[in-house]
């Protein structure tokens, strides 16, 4: 699936649609688009006709003309849902041509909160894989918005294949005290934009080390509908260390706790032409150390023009990872176990199987018995669901 040569016309590469639902997300995408040299298909879905007209996003879908009369939903989530329901056909036509929908929404308000689950449902009906990036409100935005956001999240989780939630509150702690409000919001937008962009870069372009759609599909479909997202950036000498520190010790992944709990993750590295193999190796090693034993780590790297001296690291991690069944295992063997120390051509990567890793993992999940389908209990690096006697290597004579 990853053998397509470019992003245009009739290729086999994953066709990605990025859609922002509601005012907040549309403005985020608008800003991201400004300095995106070869952007994917981006669509803005909103009730507010004026906001749509002012948006720099080329593809615009106005929903709920009758019910919202071209205005915003005014924080009324039910109105957002009804508006989307009014234009099901337009939404269906929008997603029809694509394989992957990356949906962005700022939750708490009217349109995004409840229209996003509707769009996700349609995408699911049309057979797309849906990955949703969602921000939830700051605490000071009030209880009503929080509540609305939680309800929206619950609805979205039922429809999307995976929801990446960026709680503004958590990002809040990344900012120095006294940060102006506008800057705080801009920061959140940047994080969301960076995540979407990082993912897209790795999936839609030809890269030094590609991640393909099936990697993402595997992660997302077995993620228990919830993924965590982290982003770190570094510049100059020691950029890899900077990016790693920001990710593994920053609050976005709860100081690395998320990585320690995750059963599978995608690492996307973006750098300039000076990106070194030793850097990739180091990043991979650090994640391997931080992750729980047997976690699936797949990594891709992209070289971008004009990125010399810069390095960005995007992580998508599944905390509630449920290992796919045996029959599904073969399909996954192709891309998920790539190691960064060498970058063989894709065809070769495909053939190379990593039987040992896979077997040990299947074995491991078997040991967990009745807990094999629930999030593991990790304590000081040990999976407590595995019988104590097994972890201590004591054999039972039966």
């Amino acid at each position, binding site marked *: 699936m990853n053998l397509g040569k470019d992003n245009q016309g009739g290729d086999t590469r994953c066709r990605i649609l990025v859609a922002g639902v509601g005012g907040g997300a549309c403005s985020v995408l608008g800003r991201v688009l400004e300095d995106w040299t070869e952007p994917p298909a981006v669509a803005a879905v909103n009730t507010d006709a004026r906001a749509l007209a002012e948006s720099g996003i080329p593809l615009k879908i106005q929903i709920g003309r009758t019910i919202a009369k071209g205005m915003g939903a005014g924080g009324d989530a039910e109105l957002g849902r009804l508006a989307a329901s009014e234009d099901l056909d337009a939404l269906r036509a929008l997603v029809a041509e694509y394989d992957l929908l990356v949906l962005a929404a700022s939750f708490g308000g009217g349109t995004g909160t409840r229209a996003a689950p509707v769009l996700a449902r349609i995408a699911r009906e049309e057979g797309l894989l849906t990955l949703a990036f969602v921000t939830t409100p700051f605490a000071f935005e009030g209880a009503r918005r929080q509540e609305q956001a939680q309800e929206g999240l619950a609805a979205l989780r039922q429809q999307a294949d995976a929801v990446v939630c960026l709680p503004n*509150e958590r990002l809040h702690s990344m900012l120095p005290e006294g940060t102006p409000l506008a800057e705080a919001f801009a920061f959140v937008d940047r994080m969301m934009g960076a995540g979407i962009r990082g993912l897209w870069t790795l999936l839609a372009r030809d890269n030094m080390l590609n991640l393909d759609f099936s990697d993402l599909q595997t992660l997302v479909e077995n993620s228990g509908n919830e993924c965590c997202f982290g982003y770190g950036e570094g510049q100059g000498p020691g950029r890899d260390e900077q990016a790693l520190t920001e990710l593994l010790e920053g609050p976005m992944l709860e100081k690395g706790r998320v990585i320690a709990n995750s059963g599978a993750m995608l690492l996307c590295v973006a750098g300039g032409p000076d990106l070194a193999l030793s850097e990739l190796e180091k990043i991979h090693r650090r994640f391997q150390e931080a992750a729980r034993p047997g976690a699936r780590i797949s990594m891709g790297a992209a070289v971008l023009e004009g990125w010399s001296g810069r390095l960005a690291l995007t992580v998508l991690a599944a905390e509630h990872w449920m290992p796919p069944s045996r029959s599904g295992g073969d399909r996954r063997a192709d891309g998920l176990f790539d190691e960064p120390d060498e970058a063989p051509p894709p065809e070769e990567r495909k053939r190379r199987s990593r039987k040992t890793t896979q077997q040990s993992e299947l074995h491991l999940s078997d*040991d967990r018995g*009745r807990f094999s389908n*629930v999030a593991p209990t990790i304590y000081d690096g040990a999976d407590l669901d595995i019988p104590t006697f097994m972890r201590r290597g004591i054999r*039972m004579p*039966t």
Partner: protein
Amino acid sequence: MSMEPIVAVEIGTNRARVFVGEAREDGALMITAVGDCASSGMRKGELFHFESASQCLERALRQAEDAANLTVNEVHVALSGSQIEGMPNRGEIPVDGEITAEHVEHVCRVAREVTLPADREILHSIVGQFSVDGLCGVKPEGMVGQKLAADVLIVHGQHARMFNLVRVVKGLKLEVADLLFSGLCAAMSALSAEQKLQGVLLIDLGGGTTDYMAYAQAKIADAGAIGVGGDHVTNDIAKAFRLSTMEAEALKIQHGDAMVSAAGRTRRLPLPAAAGETPRTAKLSDLQSVIHLRMEETFGLIRARLQRQNLLHLLGGGVVLTGGGAYLKNVAQLAEKVFGLPCEIGGPRNVSGLTANLSGPEYATGVGAVLCAYKNACLRQEQARSVWRRLGQWFGLG
């Protein structure tokens, strides 16, 4: 002082229970009805399957409603799960001269101000002790000093997981009055004031989680939950002797023992075998060691945590075990060995009119939840009265 009947629900990993309590004329609390149903849909104290959890709770609820002859509208929910953590925090304020009730209120507010990751929510914030100018454990009101400090224990959990349980309850058209940490509930009903004064550790051995609560110098010093419970013991047995979960559970109940005995080395137990298979046996001592290793590890995890907090030497009152796991043979003996402290099996005690069939250790949490809710309600009435009294004083009526 009349009060509506108090209803508490405990959606445990193995049982869903509903308790109805009513205040008697003399102010003592009486449990008037209980509903009890085998629970499915829960794993490790967390929601696993919505419908089955909901059905079990409904059955238990109807039982209690029929027995108490009332319609339940509002419930107090006792919950657990490995995501629940205790976090000690200290708040300090400068004071000038005599400390007033306002100062005390202020310092408590300061101590409760903590920044948690956005997906976490405070369940309880329990004021431990006050200190004035470094003098600990004082009653600050009326004292003179320059610095007033309050130590609180913040018990917090992951919002989404707790919200899942709330959804189960709300799905039955019930209002959730409050959420209570089940370890706190168990301590409420199973510990005496004297034990708390001496310092005591309560361990509630549930089906899916093990909750603990430590008291030192009559105050709550630490609390938490480990996502390991009786189900893990069963799973370990199933894995060790290649049995189904049901068979392993039966074996645990009939022959389970937390200590390895000399007699066990010579005694063999018949294992269930399918028709046509050759009958198998296992050494009793093997079964004992599987259980012993698991329980020893679980107690060890709690011990390590208390040691880190420097609390072990403050637990003169010993260890009290509650929960269904307390029925495991010799479990108290094992706890004595691990903690080096006297250990007893506890059950609900601080409630009058308890019939014999409610005094078992497995009822400590549920009865405690009613007790907890009752005390809170009393406190609120008391506060309401004191506000009126204070208002009265202001207007010269007091």
